[in-house]
């Protein structure tokens, strides 16, 4: 009998392996379908090519990778040809204890300001949800850490019927930034526990997102793209209010968030 190792080496050529699938890792920009929101044409393996699977798998892939490798966002930015400055916003791994510092510092919201001062600075009409009333704190984030046309954060520390997030210490965070609707794309990244659902917010197309902290991109008015992290461990509503991208983050139910968004 030939040497056992020789037999094994010879046997290698006779092993029947499953066919190697063609793997794709490119991430082309999504195209918007007329009247139907966005589709995410991330090319995946044929086995995952069903429409629902495409969207889910694409999101999960980005989510897991981003969650696992937060320092690699520069690489992602280069891959999708992002030209804006990437702000690294660490995903807090646990909801407690709260880090020290003011809300703005803890959540990287920018500089504290007032609603009036922020309104004078930005080019769009800052929308305030009537169901929440005046914000307790307002922050303005400008370039280079913020989007090219700034970002406004409205902080609601406590509101009846909405639990205070153990992660951030506030009830609701409303973020507003300018972007072109037909070029906006975001790739909300969700973990295996996350979900994404297309919703209508007062006539505006939007997405209801649940799950752990996640990241997303959006296209700014000048065509460049901005990367940011949704901060709360809870749920998020994102929608386009006539060119202003609005994000509502908090431990809200879906219906609560949509009502809140529709009250802007």
């Amino acid at each position, binding site marked *: *009998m030939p040497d*056992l*190792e020789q*037999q*094994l*080496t010879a*046997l*290698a*050529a*006779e*092993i*029947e*392996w*499953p066919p*190697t*699938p*063609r*793997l*794709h*890792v*490119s991430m082309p920009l999504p195209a918007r379908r007329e009247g139907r929101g966005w589709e995410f044409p991330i090319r*995946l*393996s044929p*086995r995952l090519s069903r429409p629902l699977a495409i969207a889910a798998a694409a999101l999960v*892939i*980005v989510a*897991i*990778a*981003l969650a*696992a*490798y937060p*320092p*690699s966002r*520069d*690489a*992602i930015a*280069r*891959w999708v*040809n992002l030209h804006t400055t990437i702000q690294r916003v660490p995903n807090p791994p646990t909801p407690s204890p709260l880090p020290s510092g003011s809300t703005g510092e803890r959540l990287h919201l920018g500089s504290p300001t007032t609603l009036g001062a922020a309104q004078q600075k930005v080019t769009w009409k800052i929308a305030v949800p009537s169901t929440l009333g005046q914000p307790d704190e307002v922050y303005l984030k400008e370039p280079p850490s913020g989007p090219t046309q700034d970002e406004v954060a409205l902080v609601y520390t406590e509101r009846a019927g909405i639990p205070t997030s153990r992660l951030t210490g506030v009830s609701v965070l409303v973020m507003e930034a300018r972007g072109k609707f037909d070029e906006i794309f975001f790739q909300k990244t969700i973990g295996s526990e996350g979900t994404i659902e297309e919703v209508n917010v007062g006539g505006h197309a939007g997405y209801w997102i649940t799950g752990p902290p996640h990241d997303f991109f959006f296209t700014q008015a000048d065509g460049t793209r901005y990367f940011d992290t949704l901060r709360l461990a809870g749920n998020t509503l994102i929608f386009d209010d006539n060119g202003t991208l609005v994000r509502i983050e908090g431990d809200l139910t879906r219906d609560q968030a949509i009502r809140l968004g529709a009250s802007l």
Partner: protein
Amino acid sequence: MEGRPADDPDLITRAQRGDKAAYEEIVQRYQQIAFRTAYVVTGSAADAEDAAQEGFMKAFRALDRFRAGADLRPWLLRIVANEARNRVRSSGRRHQLELRLTEGFRPGDAAPSPEAVAVAADERRRLLETINALSEDDRLVIASRYFLDLSGEETAAALGIPEGTVKSRLSRALARLKARVEEAASA
């Protein structure tokens, strides 16, 4: 040089600069060995496909941390194999890796006599059955080293064990395999 395949360092440099085509070439170059490595770890073609897909995505995101001058293949295989092991852990199940023989002869084989064909095929089949009956650790290290033709470093990466352990584990696996083959022959 035009027409000549780019070497790995060149592809890595280009991919790190954001050249999609370069990274896609890396994927194409290593997708078969990555998929098969993941298959050995998971025992499932579907899980292996997902692990390889995910592994290449993670590798891309980690390109900035790739150490210049290091070998790309073991680095990629480590990431893919880690992903495969994570899938096995998270699903709580590992499929039994069942290796099988291809049917017929490879192109270029000399035409042996029908009797020799039958004997050789029977020997190979029995050897593979014996391997399939080994413990998981033994089966995986033999498959990695001989069937995937992984280096010691790559085998260590695929199995998630220190490189020094590969040699001792392989040695013990071969000893057990040899004992079983001899036991079967004398029965």
